[in-house]
């Protein structure tokens, strides 16, 4: 069975390198976008199984990416996990309201992130 494909959208290269290496170690195929615009392009091109997205990014922020994904018929079912430094209650609530399936605050616990991603992927597979 092919490995699940995960798109990481974050403008911080250190975070993307850390998360990529973590997820590749778990056997996932990883794509990286350094801004919201690029994330949308990669999403349309590769139809990932899950997107891990930051909120603060150039060109299109995470909220805009969420809205664009949810308004696109081909991408609307892709689960999105927000990985952001924004830790205020209103940011988390807004992220979830805009269509995120989960929210993890940076600095993050790597094991917890992997478990959440695994659960989201499992849930999506069950739905399909």
């Amino acid at each position: 069975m092919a490995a699940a494909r995960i798109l990481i959208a974050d403008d911080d290269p250190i975070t993307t390198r850390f998360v990529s290496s973590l997820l590749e170690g778990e056997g996932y195929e990883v794509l990286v976008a350094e801004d919201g615009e690029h994330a949308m392009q990669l999403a349309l091109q590769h139809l990932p199984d899950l997107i891990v997205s930051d909120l603060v990014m150039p060109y299109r922020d995470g909220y805009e990416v969420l809205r664009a994904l949810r308004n696109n018929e081909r991408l609307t079912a892709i689960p999105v996990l927000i990985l952001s430094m924004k830790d205020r209650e209103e940011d988390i609530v807004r992220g979830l309201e805009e269509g995120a399936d989960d929210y993890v605050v940076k600095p993050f616990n790597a094991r917890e992130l992997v478990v959440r991603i695994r659960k989201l992927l499992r849930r999506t597979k069950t739905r399909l």
Partner: protein
Amino acid sequence: MQRILAMAILSLSAVFFGLTTLIVFGKVWREEVQRHRRKRRRELEPKLLAYAHGDAASLLPALGGELRRGDRAVMEQILLDHAQRVRGSEYAKLSRALDELGYVDALIRQLKSRRWWRRAEAAEKLGLGGAKRACEHLIPAMSDEMAEVRMRAAKALGTLGGTSSIRELVHALNEPNRWSTIRLADILTGMGRSVVDELTSYFDSLTLAGKLAALDILGRIRPLHTVPWLEQRLDDAEPDVRARACHALGCIGDPRTAPLLVRALDDEAWPVRAMAAKALGKIARAEAIDPLCSAMRDAEWWVRSNAAHALRAMGPRGAEALEDVLDSEDRFASHQAVLMLEEMGVIDQRAQHLVGGDGGGRAEAEMFIKRLIAVGQIGRLRALAADPANAELRAVLLQLLPAAELQTEAGR
């Protein structure tokens, strides 16, 4: 003369050429170093990440048994970059690697550098890298002659935690001339519930400034178990302590504290009464409504204003109470009530009933509008009467308002 001039020009040209060459070589050298570091980073980072994600107890085997001298700066940067972004077991592994590779010892030594910026940098890195055993070396750095070193040491101790760190930070609250109390309070707040017991235990040994900062920190952390302790502070001899204790209780929002805060509305010091009113607005208990209505007639402006805002924060029950205050003989209280009702949108809602409600609702709305007119605060009614979007409402209000203005004029 010409020869001297030629010599001077030649010398200047030589100096200029020499400096240019030096600058160019310097730049080339720096770029080369950066390029080399980027290359080494690309090679070393995957090894470090594999160690962080894996089960290996040590990073050294992945590095071939030792870290090359030329790679020390690169590896330190990689470790600190990643340590700032993660927590939990991977953070612990990165901290362990920092220690294993000798960075912690080097940074502890650097804390004694003659150059203050090197000391500040060392303090910051020890905090970022989670070097817990550096706490005992960071504590003396909190007495450094340079404020920047002190603050970075405090921040590092805040990140590292532990009882001794907390105690030092709490005691630093006593020295507002040496510390930025706001930044210290941020650090202690960021440490969360672990600082609460130290703050309450050492409270009596703090100066007044320290006590006030401590109460503010408790208000931001909101530990429910400190409520009885905070209630005792309401009997403190110092009015500012009583006022901040009210504030902290309001932030925590335990409804059981409402009776004591109501009692504080009668405190002899107005800052205490003002903060008690504000706290009661946050707790929003029905038993506070009547005392807050009374507080709207307080001699001090802040108490009246906070009481009005507190009633506003209570929603429909508060709005009802504010409507009762409209008939108060105290002009300020009634004016403040109008302002709050306007901000709550009650005036607009009632005005709409003038045209949209049933017979009973219309009569009630008219009574309400007439009471506003009697108070003399009709700014919002005028604005509604000037709004061309609702012609029917406009006509009704214009019928009521001229009479009002006449009444107000007669009143004057």
